[in-house]
């Protein structure tokens, strides 16, 4: 590849990151997407909007989120130094609030009445329900019944926050199907509703807009890391579902050639059809949910069933900018499986006193392996995208006896 990142506007005016992205949607929605793009580009330049958002980040979310040197973990491994960007400390417990507040403020400015969205783990749903409550909008969250059963506490939180949780029974009853159901609802009423997509996926402008709202992670982390260590991190590690927390961290470092980046996808029970959701690792380019990107699909173009112990990573597509970063070989896309993920869940809990979200555990697990291979003067910055409160019942029911002997 002789193209470099600097040659490519991210994205171009049609929403393309190289050959990925774009907008493949029925005309009913195209008109609305154009309106959202226009409104977004306007508020991006608007000082009062940006001030309002920054002030909420500070006083409502609790930003900047901490950067923590995980010394115990690093020492125990005996390799590179691991640092955690503590997005788990954000209000609502994950990075999702960063873009939800942006989307909710935008919706309010556009005169929308109802925020709708899909959710997998429930983190995006909770964050959006929270943002909706704050800015005074209604909120409808579409969630597969499989995920509803697995993520009880988040379902309860959404209801307490006043959101309507709509159970999705179609297809595999997980994240992909929740996206389908949310799109269907959006098509019915694209005027009063706005579909606040939960990651850097979907038609233009969402991969760009959600990325922009999440960039705060990398901007802060870069500054904090330099302040703490006097240099840049050697490695970045983040989990990749749709790719929002990863791109939020990576964006601030894309031009720093000395910084290696790792996006960690779930290999689930193993890299066999239906047992994983390692889209960039095993996928091929295709078009799903309104955008072109790598996806897990069969020869005919049907999306394949996906699986991960982390509901929030359980998706057969991935944000288009990640597809470009893969082709450019700027980011290494790697995997972590269920087993290592659960190990990391308990390890971080017991060594540092931090219970991480199962999604984030994929990044922690990969970073632990990477650290073991590197010298102790090397550094790894991990995006700890969320906290594990939502996962404790599920983990204890399924793995408790292996890790918590009486």
């Amino acid at each position, binding site marked *: 590849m002789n193209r470099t990142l600097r040659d490519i506007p991210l994205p171009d005016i049609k929403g393309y990151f190289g050959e990925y992205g774009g907008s493949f949607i029925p005309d009913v929605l195209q008109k609305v997407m154009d309106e959202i793009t226009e409104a977004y580009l306007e508020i991006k330049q608007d000082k009062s909007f940006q001030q309002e958002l920054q002030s909420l980040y500070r006083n409502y979310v609790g930003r900047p989120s901490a950067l923590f040197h995980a010394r115990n973990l690093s020492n125990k491994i005996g390799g590179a130094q691991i640092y955690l960007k503590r997005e788990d400390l954000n209000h609502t417990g994950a990075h999702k609030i960063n873009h939800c507040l942006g989307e909710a403020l935008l919706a309010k400015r556009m005169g929308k009445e109802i925020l709708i969205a899909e959710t997998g783990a429930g983190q995006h749903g909770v964050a959006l329900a929270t943002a909706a409550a704050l800015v005074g909008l209604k909120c409808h969250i579409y969630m597969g019944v499989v995920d509803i059963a697995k993520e009880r506490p988040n379902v309860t939180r959404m209801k307490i926050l006043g959101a309507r949780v709509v159970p999705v029974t179609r297809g595999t009853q997980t994240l992909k199907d929740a996206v*389908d159901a949310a799109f269907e609802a959006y098509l019915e009423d694209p005027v009063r509703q706005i579909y606040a997509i939960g990651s850097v996926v979907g038609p233009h402008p969402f991969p760009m807009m959600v990325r922009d709202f999440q960039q705060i992670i990398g901007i802060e982390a870069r500054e904090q890391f330099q302040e703490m260590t006097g240099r840049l991190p050697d490695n970045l590690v983040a989990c990749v579902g749709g790719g929002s927390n990863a791109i939020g961290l990576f964006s601030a470092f894309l031009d720093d050639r000395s910084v290696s980046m790792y996006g960690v996808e779930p290999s689930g029970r193993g890299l066999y059809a239906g047992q994983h959701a390692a889209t960039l690792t095993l996928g091929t380019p295709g078009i799903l949910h309104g955008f072109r990107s790598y996806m897990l699909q069969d020869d005919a173009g049907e999306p394949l069933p996906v699986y991960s112990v982390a509901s929030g990573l359980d998706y057969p597509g991935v944000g288009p900018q990640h597809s470009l970063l893969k082709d450019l070989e700027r980011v290494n896309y790697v995997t972590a499986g269920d087993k290592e993920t659960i190990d990391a869940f308990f390890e971080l809990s017991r060594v540092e006193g931090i219970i991480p979200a199962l999604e984030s555990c994929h990044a922690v697990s990969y970073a632990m392996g990477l650290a073991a291979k590197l010298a102790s003067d090397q550094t790894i910055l991990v995006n700890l995208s969320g906290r594990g409160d939502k996962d404790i019942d599920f983990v204890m029911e399924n793995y408790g006896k292996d890790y918590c002997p009486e």
Partner: protein
Amino acid sequence: MLETTIRNKLAQKDILLMTHIVIGYPNLDTSFEVVRTMVEAGVDLMELQIPFSEPMADGSVILKANQDALATGITVDQCFDFAQQVARDYQIPFLFMTYYNILFKYGVEAFAERMAECGLCGAIVPDLPPEEADEYLAAMNRHGLAPIFIFAPNTGETRMRQIAAHGSGFIYCMARKGVTGLQTDFSQQLGGHLAHCRAATELPLALGFGVKDHDDVQFIKGKADIAVVGSEAIRVLDSQGVAAVGDLIRSLR
């Protein structure tokens, strides 16, 4: 050419009927039976949908038909063979309807070439806007196939003209927002929308989404050229069987 065929038919009838099936729902044998029944009941053209598991523009009835058809293991190749056979057996125009990833994975040029070989006349791809359609339009043109585009109820006049400039055969007008298969209000407002569509293009107009009975078709007469019946035919097939689909079609005009 599809447009000429439609115009010739319109010289004899005041409204044409287009019906829709999902190929392989509930199985291929029944699909053949349904096509035969519909043609014998006098439909003027037909949409054959290649099943896709995420049919973004379709509501629950057609979604389920797509998923059930896929569950039988039907392949895109079988859909081509099916189309070839019905196009050989019956003298009405047949169109493919499907979602863009099916074409993209098959190879857009190869897909169009095979469509032409099978005797299909055109295609409706609801998630492919003209802006993203350069390769598709070139392939369809090369093989003498009509790319059918869609006017939505919120499509403005300028955009309608842009869309129409890329389409041929006819324009598919949605009677309302949302997905297929739900209640449509056949009201004055819809009449107004169709008048705008008419003003934006010389192409014949089809009206679909929620068309289900004689009254709806009467309403469409004079405002559009083709009435499209989709979900209702599947509902009747599910509840009353193939013969009743013929009765439904005959009751419409």
